């Protein structure tokens, strides 16, 4: 159903791209104007996207009937490749609503951070950022599998250039590794996509001849539920595995995470913020949207094993983060640990787990972006990321220290801030889920302790102690731009911590529908 008359989602989707187009006309040398145009587009996209939660039906009329496809809102559908049955169809539901908001919210902040961090070839940098923004929003709103895959691969290109051109020392290696690693993962998904398409087309063509097959996600779901398309267990598990691998590389789940530290260390600040802020969420979103909805039986089967991987990721990420001497690597591994929580939440396969995972993705997006901004601020002033180089900055940069403390604590999961709400709901979900026992939770809670350990180590070595290095003594505190960026980020951090009900209400209906299907499938199979 589309509440509004005009195609809002397409507008939000293509506005950044239009901005990129406009930037082409800006003369290359004029960096200032390029930044202004890009910032203006980003802010416009965000303001436009504010319409989404306002007009979003928290409990649409259709009840969560088991077997009905997920109820999409702001739906747009235009035939795109009829011979294959692919349609340009957009739509969001509770699951993707907040992730789209996160993307559009981070947009202006990322552009704001480029003012100081990027000095060479600013115009192209902005163009790449805008294109990346379109690609990311595309992934969340696409309701057609082919369109989804198109945007999914498309996000790689600008990101690889961002790392490859504007990165630091061995950026080429990092960019190449990032591209190949993620691409290899998602090629399997393409295979599964096509297999699903063909299986579906043959199954339906048997009934109604002349059916040319389709890629529309809701059609797949309704046919699967109605039994028109049945996958035997091995095929379903294979398809599940293929989809899962692509998302696991992106999330990054434990064994597939080695590209993340290299990509983060080499990426420019803005690149890191976008990479950590949104790109990691594509994997998580994909798992919930595609793995759980399309292959519920396989999810039930695979959940315990994947939860083990997630828990290893939590502990492993935290431990390795603790041992890092490079700030960016520390924050990168902290993302591995936090996203481990998200995957644990997803594969708890119950309402608390999944909504906790969704909220934790938004939280992680906010707090890790702030952490990377923090590292960026220090890098621009001292051009080094080594912890040993810093000390006693609390006295030199008090405002900066205050924000960093807030962000570090939110990331460590202090109650009252956003991190805790997400993590606690995930742990509750994992504890109550029939598939996972209390042992998973015991280790996950260990992860919470380790999180405090490495984040406080970061905070202590940068801000506490006396000003050992003379260079640190004269560092200027946050300038106006950095201040607004941090302030903008800390508002939702506190708001989600104190009043998450608003966010949970948004995702309530879709998660309930998803969980109902999962239970029905589990009971059925």
């Amino acid at each position, binding site marked *: 159903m589309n509440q509004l008359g005009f195609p809002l989602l397409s507008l939000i989707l293509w506005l950044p791209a239009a901005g990129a187009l406009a930037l082409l006309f800006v003369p290359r040398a004029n960096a200032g104007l390029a930044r202004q145009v890009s910032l203006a587009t980003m802010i416009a996209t965000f303001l436009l996207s504010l319409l989404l939660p306002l007009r979003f039906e928290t409990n649409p009329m259709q009840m969560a009937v088991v077997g009905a496809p997920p109820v999409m809102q702001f739906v747009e559908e235009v035939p795109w490749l009829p011979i294959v049955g692919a349609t340009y169809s957009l739509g969001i539901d509770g699951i993707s609503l907040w992730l789209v908001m996160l993307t559009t919210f981070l947009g202006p902040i990322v552009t704001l951070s480029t003012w100081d961090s990027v000095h060479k070839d600013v115009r192209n940098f902005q163009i790449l950022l805008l294109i990346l923004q379109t690609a990311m929003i595309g992934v969340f709103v696409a309701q057609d599998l082919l369109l989804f895959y198109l945007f999914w691969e498309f996000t790689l290109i600008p990101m690889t250039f961002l790392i490859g051109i504007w990165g630091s020392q061995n950026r080429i290696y990092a960019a190449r590794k990032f591209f190949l690693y993620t691409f290899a993962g998602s090629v399997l998904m393409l295979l599964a996509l096509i297999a699903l398409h063909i299986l579906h087309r043959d199954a339906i063509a048997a009934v109604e001849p002349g059916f040319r097959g389709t890629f529309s996600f809701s059609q797949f779901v309704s046919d699967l539920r109605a039994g028109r398309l049945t996958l035997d267990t091995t095929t379903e598990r294979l398809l599940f595995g293929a989809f899962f691998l692509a998302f696991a590389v992106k999330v990054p789940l434990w064994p597939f995470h080695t590209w993340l530290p290299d990509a983060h260390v080499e990426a420019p600040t803005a690149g890191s913020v976008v990479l950590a802020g949104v790109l990691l969420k594509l994997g998580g979103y994909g798992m919930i949207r595609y793995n759980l909805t399309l292959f519920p039986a396989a999810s039930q089967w695979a959940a315990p094993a994947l939860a083990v991987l997630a828990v290893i990721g939590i502990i492993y990420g935290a431990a390795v983060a603790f*041992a890092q001497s490079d700030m960016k690597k520390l924050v990168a591994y902290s993302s591995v640990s936090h996203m481990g929580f998200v995957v644990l939440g997803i594969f708890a396969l119950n309402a608390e787990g999944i909504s906790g995972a969704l909220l934790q993705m938004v939280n992680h997006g906010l707090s890790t972006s702030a952490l990377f901004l923090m590292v960026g601020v220090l890098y621009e002033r001292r051009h080094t990321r080594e912890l040993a180089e810093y000390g006693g900055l609390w006295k030199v940069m008090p405002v900066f220290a205050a924000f960093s403390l807030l962000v570090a604590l939110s990331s460590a999961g202090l109650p009252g801030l956003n991190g805790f709400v997400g993590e606690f709901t995930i742990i509750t979900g994992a504890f109550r889920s029939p598939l996972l026992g209390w042992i998973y939770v015991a280790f996950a809670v260990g992860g919470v302790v380790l999180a405090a350990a490495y984040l406080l180590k970061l905070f202590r070595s940068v801000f506490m102690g006396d000003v050992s290095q003379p260079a640190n003594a004269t560092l200027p505190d946050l300038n106006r731009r950095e201040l607004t960026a941090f302030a903008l980020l800390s508002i939702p951090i506190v708001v989600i911590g104190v009043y998450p009900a608003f966010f949970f209400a948004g995702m309530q209906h879709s998660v309930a529908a998803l969980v109902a299907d999962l239970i029905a499938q589990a009971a059925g199979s």
Partner: protein
Amino acid sequence: MELLIWLIPLLPFIGFLLNVFVIRREREAGLVASGVVVAAFVVTLIAVAMLAGMPPEERRIVSTAWEWINTGSFRVPFAIMFDPLTAVMALLITGVGALIHIYSIGYMHGDPRVVRYFAYLNLFVTMMLFLVMANNLLLLFLGWEGVGLCSFLLIGFWFERKSAGEAAVKAFIVNRIGDAAFILAMLAVFTYFGTLNFYGDGEGGQIGFLERVSDIAGLRIGPDWQPIFVSTAISFLLLIGATGKSAQFPLFVWLPDAMAGPTPVSALIHAATMVTGGVYLMARTEALFTASFTTQGWVAWIGAVTALLAGTAAMAQWDIKRVLAYSTVSQLGFMVAACGMGAYVAAIFHLLTHGIFKALLFLAAGSVIHGTHDTQDMRRMGGLKDAMPITFRTYVIGALALAGIVPLAGFWSKDEILAHAISHGHTPIFIILFLTSLLTAFYMGRQVALVFFGTQRDPGYHPHESPAIMTVPLIVLAVGAVIGGVINLPVLHWLTDWLEPVLHEKAGEFNIWLALIATIGAVGTGYLGWWVYTTNAARIKIGGKDPAYRYSGDIWEGMEEAWYLDRLYQRTVVAGFEQLANFLARVFDPQGVDGLVMGIGRFFGGLANGVRALQTGYVRTYALVFTVGVLLVLGVMLWFAR
């Protein structure tokens, strides 16, 4: 009435916000901060008065502000409550808190970041009030960790000092370990009771889990070879959480180091309020603890062991604040042991009196430090009784109260715990606790002798009495220490009756013989301690060994290091984790996982090189390969055509 109880935590929070965003000058910060806490104290008094007015069984006001988390079946309201137990705790927090705020104005005068100090102090009081007034475990946990955060900020207030930074981080992480167990306990409670609320919210809402503890009487969880009662599991996890926060046996190492923070902080956080959080938690959820016999045993023994261990350690300390820190750990041991034995009222009573006289001792120590230009090593003090008369007198009163001499508050509360121990047949614990009370008297006598008697060993400073703004709170607290015992005199039992609706306990009868023996013991050992350190005053050198070292040698050394527990943890747990982390970060991740990935890349590279060898350039080899191709195709055709 509901509006009123919301005011209690909100007032300090407003003070916090003002200090953070509005106030810049030191004078205003001090006044606003203290004023706000005093106001909170007054409001608490009014609330208590109104509560007293209500009939005993209805003495509970529950007020929900908004729906905090509501996803799926997991509903947690942001709700506070006010019942007799909370009232008593709130009185202690705001009362002692107000005095400490006033004292801080004087103590922290001239510190460059004093505005931020008062902001943290106000935030601490807010969080502590949330902790005691929460109506569900999650909000209690919010206060719990909030208090941990404030202790991190306040211990690390003078972050220039390396020791302060490390102590702050250590405190937070050790607390976090306890909190991890606390989270698990919350999960178990939620799974087996469906709600985290202590009590129903009045309007027929779901009744809290404390009223339905009987539901889980028979349930067992855990592996089938060793099934444990659900109630045991939950209460044991809560116990671990409490040991983390109230610095009991396994997790007490952070408290002595926390003395690196300013002294009023140690008085407020590490004597009166935060560390009592664990005891309050056990008292609040006593229904769970009494339901499982095994955990009660554990609680009692942990308390007793901590008391003894910390008592011995306190005897051998040189730093004036570390003595009091170990003494706090020891007294907390008393309270936890009391909870373990089911004497919750006695525990709360001791908590209150201890809160008063320990805060007094810390503040007096602070004024000693303030007067001697920040010297904390007792070996450099001595003979300060003439220079600082008020501090000396209040200090002695505090010391006597702690030692448990008859008229003073300490005696009554400690005696009640010991009486309960005997009457309920916990003789081994009684012996340990009795022995510890003697040790307590000894080290207080020692401290008084070292600090105030003899001659001033270090001429480097000339001591002066603290200004009025510091001594007035001392006097008020001293009065409190003297008359504190009246709260729950053996005959009157005000506190027992007051807490009856919450803790449902009957008053134990007064054991005269025990009282006599305890007092004689305390006076004796106290005098012994004082006598040893005044006669041997000459032998104490700055930086030298304790005169008692000649008799006991290594034992004394062991006691000073609190039986090397801290070093044990440092070497095993912390160092072990660092090695593991380094191994994973330096070896396993780059070579192992990454190696695997890059390995695949290299493997295909090798394969490609192999194939390249075929390109010899001779036409005939190509022809050869060509023929092989033809053969293969034919072979396949044959294979399928057969």
